[in-house]
């Protein structure tokens, strides 16, 4: 699986906790568009083989492939946050950014066909609304390094508790 090498924060989903309820999509589309429509959500849940479930939003890659792919220079990356900005006046709906994204994290507005990308709810006081709503706390705003630290901590717990249980 491709992984982001970014220093930036992004909305990450823990597939062990995600139950696939899709409430994140409702909350996202409502926050961004004022209506409930998962086609307008910047975060998407995925379910494969019935039990493999997670949610995907923009991973804020460094030197982001979507920005490089855009032939119209409609996409730019905020150097401080890594958030991808879409200039709707330049976007011509070619979808090259959608193709370029390894994570499938860019969606198209079904009516205008313009690219729509997670901006971590920059304009909301309490941050990403999907993170706030997620009933299982599966979503977190994190960086790859923070996530790695968390994984290491979990691994050590698992190994020690696992060894105790086995012993």
């Amino acid at each position, binding site marked *: 699986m491709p992984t982001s090498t970014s220093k930036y924060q992004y909305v990450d989903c823990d597939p062990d906790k995600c*139950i*696939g*309820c*899709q*409430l994140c999509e*409702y*909350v996202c*589309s*409502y926050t961004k*568009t*004022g*209506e*409930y*429509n*998962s*086609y*307008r959500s910047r975060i998407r849940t*995925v379910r494969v083989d*019935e*039990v493999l*479930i997670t949610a995907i939003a923009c991973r804020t890659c460094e030197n982001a492939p979507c920005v490089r792919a855009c032939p119209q220079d409609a996409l730019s990356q905020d150097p401080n946050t890594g958030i991808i900005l879409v200039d709707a006046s330049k976007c011509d709906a070619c979808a090259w950014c959608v193709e370029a994204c390894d994570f499938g994290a860019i969606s198209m507005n*079904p*009516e205008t066909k313009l690219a729509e990308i997670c901006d971590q709810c920059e304009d909301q006081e309490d941050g990403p609304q999907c993170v706030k*709503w997620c*009933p*299982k706390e599966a979503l977190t705003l994190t960086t790859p390094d923070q996530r790695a630290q968390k994984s290491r901590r979990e691994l050590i717990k698992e190994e020690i508790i696992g060894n105790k249980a086995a012993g």
Partner: protein
Amino acid sequence: MYGYHGKILHIDLKEQKHWVEEKPEDWYKMYIGGVAMATRLCWENIKPGCDVYSPDNPVCIANGIFAGTPVPVGGKYGLASKSPMTGFIGDSLSGSWFTIALKRAGWDGVVIHNISDNWVNIFIDDDRVEFRDATSLLGKGTYETEEAIREQLHDDQVRSATIGPSGENMVRFANVTNDGRQAGRTGHGSVWGSKKLKAVSVRGTHGIAVADPDTLMKLSFNITKEAQGPHTSKYRILGTSTNVLNMNKLGLLPTRNYSEGVFEGAETVSGEYLHEHHAVKTIACAQCPIACEQMSMVKGGPYEGAMTGIEYECLFANGPNLGIADLNYVIKLISIADHSGMDAMTMGITISWAMETYERKIFTNDDFKCESHPDGFPLNFGDGQSAVFLAEMIRDREGIGALLSEGTRIASRTIDKERGTETWKWAMQVKGLEPAGYDARGLKTFSLGSAVGTRGPCHNRSAAYDPDIKGDVDRFSVDDTRGALAMETEEYAAVYDTLPLCKFIRRCFTGKADRAGAWPAIANLINATTGWDLKYEDIDLIGTRATTIKKAFNIREGWKRADDTLPWRWMHDPMTKGPSAGHVTTEEELEYMKDLYYTAKGWTKDGLIPKQKLIDLGMNDVAEQIGI
């Protein structure tokens, strides 16, 4: 109009055309959604007295009021037709992304008429309707069919309701599946099969507008958070299978075709055991923050890797009820039912009937001859492998599987006619539908609820076991409170089934699940969605109207007082072991309680509905047809 589109989509499979029916807001205020709206669509579109497999028995789909909004557990829909199992109303519910897509496509409901010349997959693409050739989907399992359609249409947000091979073969109790959940009971899959309707797929790309989105967000957020607390921990941690040991300890766990209520092997088929040894992942229905479904897998042995979601009702029917104490067989059996799209409850209870018939030496090995077993096989209680063979024969309608695929009522009548036997006495069914996993001999109020149920005996439509088990009444005896109790618990359930909301959320509004605790909160949710001004008593009316339209449908199909009955075993054959031993509901007790129930409902002694009663509920056209 907020929360609704005001439009019902009609589709004619034979003519391959569709049309739009506009409905006024008042119609929605009467029937709301889910089972009530689906039944009302049946009332308006079914030719009375029609054969269930004829062109005149349409498929009626009704969205819920909250589908596609953040209201927790509001992503359910109602599916209704005249039931092949009962000949009365067949109304089912399912949690589903299918209904959310349908709502986003701009429809409140769909009525599918007539019979297709060739196997068809209906594709509702917003306001466009496409009749797609389904030949390449034939033989595919339920989930497999959904995935294949998404691939064909190149859109992973397309949601489908499908039938599997059982529905194609017209197993009478086949069902309809979406996202691994089923509109499970009363045989919708065979109605779809009779229409050559393999799947209905939907892409809905529009947003859903509600009257007061800010309020709805706040209310929904609070309920979502509350739903992570102690009121739902039993659902979240163990799921419904926790009932195996509960029912066993109360002597109510149907064992070996309901001959006993205590199963000696309950421990190893318990929810606790399942949780520890077989559960793979807990998943949610659409729009649900609770997540109770325990996806479970066979670990080891010949069926290794078989996986499906395990619920109590399917578990009891294919475990204790077959005398099977090994979950590997139980999961395999349920996965056969789920993947081929048939009602795992009826399947299990039909196999248990066949097992008892075999142990009573009416069936012999010869009766179970099939291609893989030319000499047949034995079918004793506890024999998991034979049960798996038989489930596959039912799915394929092979050999005696063809007869068993009709359910216990038709199977027992056919055998009794052929062989002069009385196997009907252990055919566990009311109105042709097999009952739930609560032995009603030890639950007198629930025995009334089971007898009068419009779709047959059902734990979802009647919550009358609740006062029995909680000790509000003496569950082993009968008194004059039971009619009103059966009515109240039935109408309480009907409110949830009509909105629809999953009942597992019922304590998360205020901490109290009773009417006083839940109705004002539900009214707030409806009002924020629609802009209406419903009050406490209006919520009560939702349940009254829902049960009334269902009963009216049955009356029009020829329902008589004698149809409200119980399996022979529950009236004559007491259990010998456990806390509920020695009890039956006698005919005298049942008739007495039916009188109480009809009186409480304001119906006649014959159980018919007075004209004025219907007019008071605003159902004037129904009054004209069946009121007396």
